[in-house]
């Protein structure tokens, strides 16, 4: 059996869980929700970079992503930040759907899986 490694765990959840060569990240939101969906997405992607690094991976090894937006009208702003960030040769399988998120000001939440080096 392969091990399960948990990063940044608390009593509720872990920010990253590694098993069998795959890292599963928790849904990540921005700390500063006073900014636009583009700004929130930029902060989220920075946090994802750090978590992937902690797990021994990086954005070029993303497998899948689910993007939750509070309103489909903020998707273009999210996509702007996303396309600037993504490794153009290595985009993950992705879906974007609209749902209510943790607080009314939270516009974007992203959950990804990636292969670990």
């Amino acid at each position: 059996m392969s091990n399960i490694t948990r990063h940044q765990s608390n009593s509720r959840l872990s920010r990253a869980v590694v098993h069998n060569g795959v890292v599963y990240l928790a849904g990540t939101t921005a700390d500063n929700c006073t900014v636009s969906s583009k700004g929130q997405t930029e902060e989220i992607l920075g946090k994802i970079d750090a978590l992937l690094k902690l797990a021994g991976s990086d954005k070029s090894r993303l497998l899948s992503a689910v993007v939750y937006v509070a309103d489909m009208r903020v998707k273009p702003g999210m996509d702007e930040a996303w396309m600037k960030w993504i490794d153009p040769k290595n985009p993950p399988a992705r879906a974007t759907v609209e749902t209510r998120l943790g607080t009314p000001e939270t516009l974007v939440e992203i959950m990804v899986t990636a292969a670990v080096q």
Partner: protein
Amino acid sequence: MSKEIVRYDPDQRLSDMVEYDGRLYLAGQVGEDNKADAKGQTASILRQIDKLLARGGSDKSKILSAVVYVADMRLKPKMDEAWMEWMDPKSSPARATVEARLGSADTLVEIMCVAAK
């Protein structure tokens, strides 16, 4: 030893499918004809999933998990009709169905799944 990641139809935003370590991660699939009802859109999605899985050397009997997004829970019976006609009854995946607003107002169903090869 680093296992290879294979990306199918990557564009600047996402890949339609990503293969890694014996598993296929599919992007959220939507129907080709948004004028069709939920059953028609689902049937179209499932045909696309069949094609993608075949390209990856898999088939619907090897789907591990699926998340179905419906634009309105009242559409779920119609989605399920197409799903049950399609699904291999001996090898149904772990599945969740939730309501979310999707890419355009007439997109009624989106399905994201992971399969073994």
